[in-house]
Structure formats: structure tokens, C-alpha cells
């Protein structure tokens, strides 16, 4: 019977990427010289399951590569190896490499064999080089430079394997004979069974394994294949694998080893510097795998408790439904009250159900935040700055789509903070700040929004410089009067960059405007507060979900439109005398000593059959979008409701002033207004 393994690939990849994230964050928290066995264990476990999975699915390159990493970490775990910064960086680089390999396999592309071999080589070197100084398992030194292909030395003439399975090995479906057969393919195998553990005949349990074996495997064999043969039983047996040497070679190899040390060190260094470069390149340009990443994963992991709540609600819904159908069967007017109650219950349950279904789409923003430790780690090394990253509120839950789309803009903002915000250590000391700068990422809920803040305690924005720059670039009139807020907003203008020197990390003049556009596309907005010398805070406000919106229906003529409730400030009747005209065209009205422009809905949307064109007879809905306030002139307000947002673009196209559509209770379609777009439309 053959099982189509491809159906499990998706799960494997997801788990592997998760594993990689665990490894990465674990490695970043690993401080040199202080072995934290729990941390190493979790890294090791992640690597091990990637290895196991990839082996199962036949991705041998991945399992081989992971195996080398695993061996290194195994030694760290056992305390046989010091944890050095070099080793940690090397492992981080390997995690990157492994991620690329997984992406390549996932996309069905070829693995970059050269890069893999390079990393593998470096790992091998690292393993032999400091490992050998701690233990006598050293391999002959002249092998070190001949590359990974010949990693097992010709001087190793074979292996001695002591294999004593635990009693329940057979119950797990493993068969020693099969493993021996596998080994015998590798070379000449001598097997000696040890019967000492076998109990009396009367006490014997035929399902238990009481034997142990001594195996001698002769030939030019690497340790890898042997480990692989035992990979599935590692936890169910006591296993000791020792290499057999030809006696005369030992002394020679030990002395040669010492000489080679510096050379290997430099190769290891060379490879380490590479992944760092490439990781910034990833940030800068997008890694090959990023396209796939941006499409977002199509499956989602959900807390079982959320599903349980959902099932409860469906249960209640079914009960309400049966109650209602009972009422309906023999209905007379006396049951009207029951019917009303039933319907009210139905409404409540439907709403609850809707909420909890939406809740399923929510995931902690942690998945975005966590990748920043790596970014900060790499960039601060590269920039020579000392930077602490603080994550606050990383368990705040956000819609899955938002999580996926917010990542790129955030990367940009954090990079800006690191590059332009935080000063060099000596500058910081000079102005009396702590040497180590702090960048913090904070997420929290406020009203129906989620707020994400990126703040730093760096040098802040210089208002005068911003202004001068804007004038120089022709983005601003020389005599323009700007509020502080407006000045800071200059950085969101296209083609604006204040960094005196463009670095490859940030400051290419495209960026902040793109960030703002992306955020606006998500229905959010972005604000910046800054104080010269103290630092800056950029806050992003995003709707909690992109699928449902609290809306206010308004009537214009025979048509119904939805205004997002969040953008409505108030609605009012207006008296003729409070209306002022500018050049007889532009109408404004005075609201609490602020002149607001009036947008007549029926004019900009060319609605026929309006009830009235006299401002005093309709209603003004005061709305705010992107910091601009205005009054929308409409016929009437209809009611508030939650609406499901449907895309107009799926079958049609973008319409200026409209952010989407929804289906009303009567089955007809109503357009959802996009306030900033309306303002733009009115200004044309």
C-alpha cells in the first residue's frame, strides 16, 4: 500500500519553519560560556524533528545538513563543547541556510548546493576543531581541509557499536535485524549477541527484547549513515558508537591537528561573515522565499479551547433553532411572545458565533515580533551599535491577515530606528545617555483598534532639518507654516530621506511613504511623535479585523451607503446661518470654532432623486479620515450594524471613494465609503 506522502508536506513545512523560529530565538538567547541546558535542549529538539521529518519525506539534503548541526549541538548539550559566540553565529547562519533549503524544497526548486556545502564544511570544521581539544575522538587533521565529502577519515578503519535496546523496543515496531541488515550494506559487519540479559524460560515475555549486541562494522564509513540506522531507536536503547583507528596514525593526527587550527578558524570565520551579509540582504531586498511567505500560509493553527467554545455555540444555536421550529409548527398569536424571545436568542447566538469564528482568525502578534530579535541582533552587530530590543504585549491577538501584512512595514520601521534613531555608543555617552540604546515594540488594543508602537530612545527627528530638507527637495513651500505634527509627517512624503549618508540598511528615499501606503491599504493609519535628542515613537493604528466593520448606514436619494463607524465623530442638523461659503462654491460650517468643509454626497456621487439639496433639511455627518475632518451631507441616517466587507475588486475594480461593498439584510449591495478617498475625490 502506498501512501501519498505529498499530502503531509504542507504540515511538515509548517512545522519545520516553526522549528527554525524556535531554534533561532533559542540561539539568540544563548549566551556564550553559560550553558543553559533547557535552552539547548529546545533548540536540539527542534533540529531533531526537522531531521526526522525530512528523513521521512526523503529530503536527504536537509536531513544530512540538520544532522551535522545536531551533532554540534549535541556536544554543547552534553557539556563537551564550550558555547562560543563563533559557534552560535555559525549555527544561526546554518539556520538561515536550512530555511533557504526548506523554501527551495517547498517551491520545488533546486537547493543551492554550493552554499549548503560551504555551511556544512564550516560546521564540520567547527565540530572537529574545538571538539577535538576537549575529547580524544579527534579525526586526522589532514582530512579537515579536504572538505566534507571525505569527512570520515580513511584512517578510521571501522566502528564499534554497543547496542543494548530497552525491553520494549520491539513494541515500538522497530526490528534490530532490519537495522543490522541496513548496516551490513555499509560494510563488513560482525554481530555478537549478548545473551546475559535473557531471563528464565518461565519468566520470559516474548514481546520484550532481552538481548543486546556488540557490532563491529569495518570499512571506510562515515558516522552519519550509522547514526541514521539507529535514528528511530535512539530513545529506546543504550547506544555507544566508537571509531576504530589504526594504532600508528593516532599520534600523527594529534600533532597535525594543532597546526591546522588557525587555518580552520579562518575558514569558519569566513563562512560566518557570509550569512550575516546575506541576512541583511534578505531584509533589504527580500529573500527568494519571501514571495511565498507574503502570500501567507493558507492553514492556521487554532487553540483547542477556541474550537470548544465554537462547538458550544453551535450547540446553543441548534437548540434555539429547534425551539423556533417547534413554535412555528403550531403557531397562533398567543405564542407571539415566545417567538420574539426565540428570535432574540437566535440573534444573540448568531452574533456570538460570528465573534468566535472571527476569533479563530486571531493570532498573537508574537509571530511577527519574535523575528525582530534576530534582525536587531544582526543589524546592531553590523552597525557597531549596542541595542536592546524590548517586546511588550506580544500576546496581543490580531487578525491573521493583519499579522501577515504588517510584518514588512514593521521591519522597515525597526530598521529605521536602528539605523537613524539610535546613536553610536560613544555619541550616546557624550550626551549622557546609557551606552546601550533601547528599541521597543509594543502592541495593545484600544477601542476597536490594535495599536503597534515602535519607539527608540535615539536622537529623534530634527524639525528644522526636516523642514529644510523638504524645501530643498521642492516638497514644501518656503514660507509654509506647519504644526509639529505636520512637520513630522513630512517623512511620509515620497522621495524624502534625511539620512546624510545613505546606508545599505535603510534610507534609500523610498520607504516611509510605502510604509504609510501599506498601512492605509490595511485600513489603518500611522503617526509619529518625536523629541529631538530623546527619541521617536511611531504608532500604527489598525483595525482588529479586515473582514467585519461596524458601520452606520446612511441614505442618499434612493441609495444606501455605509460609513465606517470609527470615522464618524458626530451627526447634526445644521442651521442655514452657520454655513459659510468660500468664493460662493466651497461650503464650510463652523463646528466648535473650527471651519469644516462640507462634502455633498449627492454631488460627488451624482446621486439622482435626492430628498433635498438644502443643507438645513438634511443631515451633516462629521467624519474624520487621515487627520482631515469634514461634514458629509446626506439625506438621513438609517441605522448601525456590523457589515461583512466584500471586495469590489474581486470581479470589478477599485472605485475612488469606496473601500468595499457589503450585502444588506434585503440582499441588495451597499457600498462602504472610504473617507480619505472621498476627501480626495471632493478636492478634484
Amino acid at each position, binding site marked *: 500500500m502506498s501512501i501519498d506522502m505529498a499530502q503531509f508536506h504542507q504540515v511538515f513545512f509548517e512545522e519545520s519553519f516553526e522549528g527554525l523560529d524556535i531554534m533561532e530565538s533559542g540561539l539568540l538567547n544563548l549566551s556564550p560560556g553559560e550553558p543553559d541546558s533547557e535552552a539547548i535542549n529546545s533548540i536540539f529538539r527542534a533540529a531533531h524533528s526537522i531531521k526526522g521529518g525530512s528523513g521521512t519525506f526523503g529530503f536527504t539534503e536537509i536531513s544530512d545538513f540538520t544532522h551535522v548541526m545536531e551533532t554540534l549541538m549535541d556536544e554543547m548539550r552534553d557539556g563537551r563543547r564550550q558555547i562560543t559566540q563563533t559557534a552560535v553565529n555559525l549555527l544561526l547562519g546554518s539556520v538561515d541556510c536550512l530555511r533557504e533549503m526548506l523554501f527551495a524544497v517547498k517551491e520545488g526548486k533546486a537547493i543551492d548546493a554550493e552554499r549548503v556545502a560551504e555551511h556544512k564544511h564550516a560546521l564540520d570544521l567547527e565540530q572537529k576543531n574545538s571538539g577535538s581539544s576537549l575529547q580524544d575522538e579527534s579525526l586526522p587533521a589532514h582530512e579537515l581541509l579536504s572538505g566534507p565529502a571525505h569527512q570520515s577519515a580513511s584512517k578510521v578503519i571501522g566502528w564499534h557499536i554497543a547496542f543494548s535496546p530497552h525491553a520494549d523496543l520491539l513494541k515500538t515496531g522497530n526490528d534490530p535485524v532490519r537495522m543490522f541488515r541496513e548496516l551490513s550494506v555499509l560494510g563488513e559487519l560482525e554481530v555478537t549477541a549478548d545473551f546475559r540479559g535473557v531471563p528464565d524460560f518461565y519468566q520470559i515475555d516474548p514481546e520484550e527484547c532481552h538481548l543486546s549486541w556488540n557490532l563491529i562494522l569495518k570499512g571506510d564509513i562515515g558516522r552519519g549513515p550509522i547514526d541514521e540506522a539507529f535514528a528511530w531507536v535512539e530513545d529506546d536503547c543504550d547506544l555507544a558508537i566508537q571509531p576504530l583507528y589504526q594504532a600508528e596514525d593516532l599520534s600523527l593526527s594529534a600533532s597535525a591537528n594543532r597546526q591546522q587550527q588557525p587555518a580552520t578558524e579562518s575558514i569558519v570565520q569566513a563562512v560566518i561573515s557570509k550569512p550575516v551579509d546575506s541576512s541583511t540582504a534578505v531584509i533589504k531586498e527580500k529573500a527568494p522565499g519571501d514571495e511565498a511567505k507574503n502570500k501567507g500560509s493558507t492553514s492556521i493553527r487554532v487553540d483547542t479551547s477556541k474550537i470548544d467554545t465554537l462547538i458550544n455555540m453551535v450547540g446553543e444555536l441548534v437548540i434555539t433553532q429547534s425551539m423556533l421550529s417547534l413554535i412555528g409548527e403550531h403557531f397562533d398569536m398567543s405564542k407571539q411572545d415566545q417567538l420574539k424571545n426565540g428570535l432574540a436568542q437566535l440573534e444573540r447566538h448568531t452574533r456570538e458565533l460570528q465573534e468566535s469564528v472571527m476569533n479563530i482568525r486571531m493570532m498573537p502578534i508574537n509571530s511577527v515580533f519574535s523575528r525582530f530579535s534576530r534582525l536587531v541582533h544582526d543589524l546592531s552587530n553590523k552597525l557597531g551599535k549596542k541595542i536592546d530590543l524590548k517586546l511588550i504585549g506580544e500576546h496581543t491577538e490580531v487578525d491573521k491577515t493583519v499579522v501577515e501584512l504588517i510584518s514588512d512595514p514593521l521591519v522597515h520601521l525597526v530598521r529605521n530606528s536602528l539605523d537613524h534613531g539610535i546613536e553610536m555608543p560613544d555619541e550616546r555617552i557624550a550626551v549622557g545617555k546609557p551606552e546601550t540604546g533601547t528599541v521597543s515594540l509594543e502592541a495593545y488594543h484600544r477601542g476597536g483598534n490594535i495599536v503597534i508602537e515602535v519607539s527608540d530612545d535615539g536622537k529623534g527627528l530634527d524639525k528644522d532639518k526636516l523642514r529644510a530638507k523638504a524645501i530643498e527637495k521642492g516638497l514644501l513651500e518656503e514660507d509654509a507654516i506647519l504644526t509639529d505634527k505636520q512637520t513630522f509627517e513630512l517623512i511620509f512624503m515620497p522621495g524624502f530621506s534625511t539620512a546624510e549618508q545613505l546606508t545599505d540598511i535603510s534610507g534609500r528615499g523610498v520607504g516611509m511613504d510605502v510604509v504609510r501606503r501599506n498601512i492605509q491599504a490595511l485600513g489603518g493609519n500611522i503617526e509619529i511623535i518625536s523629541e529631538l535628542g530623546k527619541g521617536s515613537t511611531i504608532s500604527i493604528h489598525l483595525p482588529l479585523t479586515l473582514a467585519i466593520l461596524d458601520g452606520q448606514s446612511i441614505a442618499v436619494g434612493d441609495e444606501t451607503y455605509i460609513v465606517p463607524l470609527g470615522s464618524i465623530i458626530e451627526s447634526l442638523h445644521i442651521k442655514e446661518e452657520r454655513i459659510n461659503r468660500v468664493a460662493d462654491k466651497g461650503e464650510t460650517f463652523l463646528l466648535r470654532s473650527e471651519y469644516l468643509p462640507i462634502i455633498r454626497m449627492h454631488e460627488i456621487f451624482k446621486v439622482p432623486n435626492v430628498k433635498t439639496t438644502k443643507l438645513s433639511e438634511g443631515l451633516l455627518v462629521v467624519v474624520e479620515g487621515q487627520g482631515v475632518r469634514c461634514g458629509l451631507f446626506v439625506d438621513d441616517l438609517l441605522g448601525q450594524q456590523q457589515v461583512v466587507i466584500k471586495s469590489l*475588486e474581486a*470581479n470589478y475594480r477599485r*472605485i475612488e471613494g*469606496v473601500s468595499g461593498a457589503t450585502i444588506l439584510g434585503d440582499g*441588495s449591495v451597499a457600498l462602504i465609503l472610504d473617507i480619505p478617498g472621498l476627501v480626495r475625490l471632493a478636492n478634484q
Partner: protein
Amino acid sequence: MSQAAENNEIERAEKKRLATSAQFLSFTLGNEEYGVDILSVQEIRSWEPVSRIPNVPSYEKGVVNLRGAIVPIIDLRERFHLGHGQYSALTVVMVLQALIGDKTRVMGVVVDAVSNVIDVDKKSVQSAPNFGSKVSTEYINGLITVNGRMVMLLDVNKLLKLDGVDDVED
């Protein structure tokens, strides 16, 4: 056994027919007769009121709710400058679908009446004559003669594309 052989025979004939011919759904606009590939017709509905979309050409009548999807409705008569028709309950909306890029797009087109399913031998399709700038033939795939009348075969992909995909980018 003879039954099986017969079935095979029919299948083979069918395959042969598919390779050389295609089926088109013909419909009328005023006095003119048009045809679209029947495989692109998803369903035929009667006219129902639409929700108007502001600031678009008048032939884009608006959008309707088609089982939860928002689908635009285009008046082909107005699109082809054939004057304005009166809508009644008998007015027909053909819901067409086309694969544009990697997405399926659905759109309703208002036509006067749907007339027939016609079998077209691919060899008998003539290319549309060039009228220069006087008449745009860009949506016409070819012309055929059915019962002495000329039927213009429309390219659904182009027809659906014209309503926006290109504009969406900017």
C-alpha cells in the same frame, strides 16, 4: 460488446468534433446578432435592480449580489453604442466568467435576448474586417454565418478585461 464499441465510436466522434468545432451561445442586441463561447457562460438570469456605482461610465450599470459575491453588471448595448434599452423583467443578464491572470472573474452583461446554441465549425470562422477607427473590432474574435445571418463571436476574456483589470494596478 456492440454497445461498448458504439460508445467508443460516439466518444471518438465527440472528440473529433470538439477539436474542429465549438459551441456558441448567440444573443441579440438591437438588430445585431452576437455569440459567446458557451463554456464561458455561467448562468442566465433575469434583470434585477442593481446598486449604482458612482463616477463610472454609464454602461457599467452597477453591482449585484450573486450568492454572496459582488458582481458588476455591464450593458452591452450601451457598451457598443447601440442606444439605450428599456429594462423589463424580460431583459436578460448573461453571467460570464473568464480567467484573467490567475483569477476567475465573473461579470453580468445585459443583452436584449438570448436566442440559440450554435455549433460552429472552426474553419468557417472569418476574421473580422478592419473598419479603421470608425468601428472598434477589438472584442470580436471572428464572424460566422448562421442561417444567412451574420453572427459576431465575442472574445469574453477581452470583454471582461476591458472593465478594469488594467486600471486596478494604478
